[in-house]
C-alpha cells in the first residue's frame, strides 16, 4: 500500500502519525466533503428501474426461501429436513434483517414511493419494534458515530471499546457480556433501543413514554415468540419439538451473524473514536471525515456482501446511509481512491480477521489501560500468538 501511495504525485506524506488527519488542511477537509457530496448526487441521479428491480428481487427471494424452509421444517423430525430447513431459515432471517429490513428502515428505498417498501411502514423480523430501532440507530448512532458518550452503539453501554473510555471493574466481564449479547443480540438491540440501563434507574421507571415503549417491545416479543415457538411448532404436529429447536437455532445463528458483522463495522483496530467536544460546530466535511475514520469494511464475495446487508461496505454506508445498498459496492472503488489521495486509512479485511480484531479489543480493553500494555507485551512474546497473527496477517496495525 505504501509503495502504491508514494508513486502517486498527488499524495502528500503524512505529517503526524498520531493524528490520522493532521496532514489535512481545512480546505482539504471541505474538498473531501464536496467530492463526497458530488458522488452522492451522481448515485441519486442514476437511481432507477435497475435498483427497484434489485430490492424487489431480494424481497421475493427471501420470502420464497423463508416459506420453503418453514415448509420443510414441518417435517423436521427427519434430520435432513431439520438441517436443510434450519439452514434455509437462518439465511432467510439474516437476509430479512440485514439487506432488507435494516436498509429499508434507513430509507434507502423510500424514493420508490412504494408503501410496501418504505421506512415508515416496514416492520422487521426482530424483537425490537422498527420505530424504536429507527430512532436509536438512524438518529443517534448515525449522527454521533463513534462519539464517546453519545453513540450508544459504541459498546452498547455495557462495554469499553476505546482506551479513551474510563475503566470500571464491571468491564472485566465484558468478553462474557459481549458473548451473551451476541447470542441474544435482538434482545440486546431492543433493550438498548429502550435505553433500558438508563430507564430502569429509580425515578425513570414510571415515565409514561418509557412505559409505552416498553409495552410496545413486550408486544413485539410476544408476537415473535408466538410465531417461532408456538404457532410453527404446533403446525408441525409430530415434528413440533424439532421445529422449535430449528427456529431457536435460526434465531441464534442470525443473532451471532448480525452481531459479528456489526462488531466489524466500528470495533476493529484502525477505527477511530471521537471526543464529545470534537463534534461541536462540525462542518459537513468534518462529519464525512468522522464517518470515514470511524468505520471499517469487510472484504469478500458478492454473496458475503449480500449476507451482511452490504454493511460489509460500512464506510460507504456511513457516508451515505440512505443510498440503496446495491450501490455501495459500486462506489467503493471511488471512495477508496479518495482515502488514498488524502492519505487516510481505509480499514478493511476479511470477516475472520475483522472479527478477531474486534474480539481482541474487547478482551484487552476489559483491563485498565496500564494493564493492557503489560498484557500486550506478554502476548507478543507468546509463540502461539505470533502464529495466530501470521494467520490473520496482521490483527493490529503497527
Amino acid at each position, binding site marked *: 500500500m505504501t509503495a502504491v501511495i508514494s508513486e502517486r504525485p498527488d499524495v502528500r506524506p503524512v505529517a503526524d502519525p498520531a493524528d490520522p488527519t493532521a496532514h489535512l488542511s481545512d480546505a482539504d477537509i471541505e474538498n473531501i466533503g464536496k467530492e463526497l457530496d458530488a458522488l452522492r448526487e451522481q448515485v441519486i441521479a442514476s*437511481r*432507477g*428501474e*435497475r*435498483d*427497484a*428491480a434489485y430490492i424487489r428481487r431480494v424481497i*421475493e427471494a427471501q*420470502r*420464497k426461501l423463508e*416459506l420453503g424452509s418453514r415448509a420443510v421444517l414441518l417435517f423436521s423430525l427427519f434430520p435432513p429436513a431439520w438441517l436443510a430447513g434450519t439452514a434455509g431459515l437462518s439465511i432467510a432471517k439474516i437476509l430479512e434483517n440485514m439487506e432488507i429490513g435494516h436498509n429499508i428502515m434507513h*430509507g434507502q428505498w*423510500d*424514493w*420508490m*414511493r*412504494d*408503501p*410496501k417498501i*418504505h*421506512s*415508515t*411502514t416496514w*416492520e*422487521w*423480523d426482530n424483537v425490537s419494534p422498527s420505530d424504536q430501532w429507527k430512532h436509536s440507530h438512524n*438518529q443517534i448512532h448515525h449522527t454521533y458515530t463513534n462519539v464517546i458518550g453519545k453513540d450508544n452503539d459504541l459498546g452498547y453501554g455495557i462495554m469499553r471499546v476505546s482506551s479513551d473510555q474510563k475503566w470500571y471493574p464491571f468491564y472485566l466481564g465484558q468478553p462474557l457480556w459481549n458473548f451473551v449479547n451476541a447470542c441474544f443480540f435482538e434482545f440486546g438491540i431492543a433493550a438498548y433501543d429502550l435505553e433500558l440501563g438508563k430507564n430502569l434507574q429509580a425515578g425513570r421507571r414510571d415515565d409514561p413514554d418509557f412505559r409505552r415503549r416498553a409495552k410496545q417491545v413486550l408486544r413485539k416479543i410476544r*408476537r*415473535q415468540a*408466538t*410465531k417461532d415457538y408456538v*404457532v*410453527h411448532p404446533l*403446525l408441525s404436529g409430530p415434528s413440533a419439538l424439532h421445529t422449535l429447536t430449528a427456529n431457536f437455532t435460526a434465531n441464534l445463528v442470525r443473532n451471532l451473524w448480525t452481531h459479528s458483522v456489526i462488531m466489524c463495522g466500528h470495533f476493529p483496530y484502525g477505527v477511530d473514536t471521537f471526543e464529545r467536544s470534537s463534534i461541536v460546530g462540525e462542518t459537513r466535511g468534518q462529519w464525512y471525515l468522522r464517518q470515514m475514520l470511524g468505520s471499517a469494511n469487510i472484504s469478500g464475495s458478492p454473496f458475503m456482501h449480500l449476507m451482511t446487508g452490504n454493511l460489509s461496505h460500512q464506510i460507504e454506508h456511513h457516508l451515505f446511509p440512505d443510498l440503496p445498498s446495491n450501490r455501495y459496492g459500486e462506489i467503493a472503488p471511488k471512495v477508496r481512491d479518495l482515502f488514498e489521495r488524502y492519505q487516510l486509512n481505509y480499514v478493511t479485511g476479511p470477516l475472520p480477521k475483522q472479527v478477531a480484531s474486534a474480539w481482541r479489543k474487547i478482551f484487552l480493553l476489559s483491563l485498565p489501560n496500564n494493564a493492557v500494555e503489560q498484557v500486550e507485551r506478554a502476548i507478543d512474546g507468546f509463540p502461539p500468538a505470533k502464529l495466530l497473527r501470521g494467520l490473520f496477517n496482521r490483527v493490529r496495525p503497527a
Partner: protein
Amino acid sequence: MAVLTGPTRGAFASLRARAARIAEFVTTPVLPSDYLDMISPLRASADLRGRIEEIHPETSDAVTLVIRPGGGWRGHVPGQYVRIGVDVDGVRQWRAYSLTSRADSTDGRISVTVKAMPDGVVSNYLVRRARPDTLIQLDQAKGDFTLPSPRPGKALFLTAGSGITPVMGMLRNAVTELDDVVVVHSAPRSSDVIFGGELRQLAATRQIRLVERHTDVEGMLDLAELDGIVADWAERETWACGPTGLLDAAEQRWSDAGVVDQLHTERFRPSVIVTGEGGQVTFSKTDTTVDADGATPLLDTGERAGVLMPSGCRMGICFGCVAPLRDGAVRDLRNGEITMAAPGDGVLIQTCVSAAAGTCDIEL
C-alpha cells in the same frame, strides 16, 4: 345445493376471521397478503391492482390501454376516471385517467386512453414504454363528470385534445339513449383526433353531429363563434373537457349567458394562478426537511423527498391528498389564499394545490 342461512353464514365468517388472525401469527411481522401477492396479485381481497393486457395506438402520441382490473374492482359510471399507479424508472407515480371502456363490458376489462404530454413523466411512459403484461396499481373509479338520468334531451360535448376521453366513455355507453348530441372537438390536425374514426362513424350514422376543429389550419376555437356552430348551445346540457384556456372561456361564456348551471367541466390539471415565496418544509412523521419554492405543490415536494404522500386527482377536487398542517403557512395555488397553523393545530390542507409560504410542518 344447500344455501347458507344467517347463523351458519355468520359462523363461517367468524371462522374465517379467526383463521385470518392465526395466519397473521404465522407470517408476522409481514401479512399473509404479502405472500399471496406473490402468487395472485389480482385476487379480490388484495390491494386493487390491474394488469395491462393490450396497448393500441390511437394517434401518433396517444394509446389506449386495455386493463384487467383485480377482483376488487367495483365498476364505473361512464365519464368517471380511475387513478393509476405505475413505476416509472423505479418510482411509483399516480395519475388520473378517464375510463373509455363500456361500463358493462363482457370480459370485465377496462380501458383508458392516454395522450403523451411534452416532458410528461407518466403519459410518455404509458404511450411509448409500457408493455402488455405490466402490473399496475389501481384505485376505484371516481368523479361526477357523468350523464344524469333521465338523460338530457339535448346534449353538447365541447372538447379538445385528450379531453375527448371521458366524453368517448359516455358516448360508447349511452349514445343510443341520447336523442340529440353535438360534439365540438378541437385538435391540431385531422390525424390528431383521438377516436377520429369512431367519432366520424357515429356522425355518418347520424347518432351525433360532429364538428371537428383542426386548429393548425383553422386556428383556435373562439367561443364567440359558438352561435354560428351550434345555434342552440344555450339550450343544451353541456359537458366540457380540455385545456385550462378552453374551460375558463367556457365558464365565462356560459355564465355571461346565465346558463352556467348547464355546464359541467372536467379539468385535467389545476389552474395555478398565484405563486410566491417558498420556505422550508418539514414532513414530521417521516422526519424529512426540504427547501421548497412557492410554486411547487407540497404533494410534489413530498414525493420527491421520498415521503409517502396520499394523493388522488392531483388537482384539487377529490381531497385524497389532505394532510394536517401542524405549523407554519401554506399558499393555495389556485387563489393565493394563505392558511396558517400554530404549533399543534393540525389544520387540514390539500397538498396537491398548496405550496409552502414560509416554513411549514406537515404531519406526514
